[in-house]
């Protein structure tokens, strides 16, 4: 029993160590993934902010210049000037919309790239974890098979030992009963037979 307990203890220890290693590896991969995601998002935000600011500056500058030019000219009527300002405003709004669409498109593409990178990382992580799990499973299975085999051998030896003891007790008890059942006449007869057998075996 002590032997089986020791075997199970060893098996439990191996399993625990393997699980601990798996946990540590998983934690490290998760941390790496989090760092990378954070860096990508920060860069993306930075790029978007910069692009937005630049575009707004250009639109603002262009609209201001055009408005100023229209306002200062003497060759257009007030209606024409007003129409021009409305047109300018429309153009500005249109540019704003286009800019927003462009920014949205860029953002989507970057998000998709991030998603692909994330998926690639996840796949890679999954492959590594699967491999590690498989190795761990094989290790545990091998340990279990060895432990089971040794336990069976130990159990068989116990059975053999128990059978030996049982047989020994039966043999001793039977002989004791036989001895008690013999009369002096029986003893005499058996001894005379032993002499005849000894003669047959050429001892006498």
């Amino acid at each position: 029993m002590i032997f089986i307990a020791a075997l199970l203890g060893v098996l439990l220890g191996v399993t625990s160590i393997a699980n601990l290693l798996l946990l540590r590896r998983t934690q490290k991969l998760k941390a790496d993934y989090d760092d990378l995601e954070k860096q990508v998002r920060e860069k993306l935000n930075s790029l978007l902010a910069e692009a937005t600011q630049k575009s707004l500056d250009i639109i603002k500058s262009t609209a201001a210049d055009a408005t100023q030019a229209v306002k200062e000219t003497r060759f257009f009527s007030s209606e024409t000037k007003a129409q021009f300002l409305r047109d300018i405003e429309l153009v500005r709004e249109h540019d704003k919309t286009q800019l927003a669409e462009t920014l949205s498109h860029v953002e989507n593409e970057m998000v998709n790239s991030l998603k692909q990178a994330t998926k690639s990382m996840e796949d890679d992580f999954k492959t590594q974890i699967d491999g590690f799990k498989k190795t761990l499973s094989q290790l545990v299975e091998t340990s279990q098979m060895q432990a089971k085999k040794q336990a069976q051998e130990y159990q068989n030896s116990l059975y053999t030992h128990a059978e030996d003891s049982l047989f020994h007790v039966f043999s001793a008890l039977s002989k004791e009963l036989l001895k008690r059942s013999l009369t002096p006449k029986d003893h005499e007869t058996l001894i005379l037979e032993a002499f005849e057998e000894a003669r047959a075996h050429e001892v006498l």
Partner: protein
Amino acid sequence: MKYSDFFELIKTTSERDAIVLELQKWQNNLYESADRANNVMLDSKIVQWIATQPDKIKAIKELTSLLNEISVIEITTACDLPEKSLEKIHNKALELVKTPCILKIIIDPVIVGGAQITFQGKYFDGSLAKKSDEYFHLHRQQIITELKPQQPGNEKLQ
């Protein structure tokens, strides 16, 4: 009467040793004092025979020597044997060996019954213990099967 006729009176080594002791005592008495020369505990046939010999000391020496040289069959038995059984066994030994012989008996209850016999360096175990062991070992598996409790799930692992 011949020397060999005395051997029929002696069945065991203990009897032989006792007679030899008495003969030596008689011999010593003959040397020391004629008055108590016959003051020995011996079978009357032996006493009568020696008494009729011209040289008693020589006769005692010869008889003692023959008794010491007599063949001995060592037998181990399970228990002490009654005189009648001892006589039958001794007669059987004489019949089989066909020369004068005596029995050296050792008691050992472990042999259960029968006898272990040693003669002239040869040994034969005709004990009941040996026969029992042989039978039990021959039928060991059957005995164990019958002794073991028949419960499901109690089978030996293969």
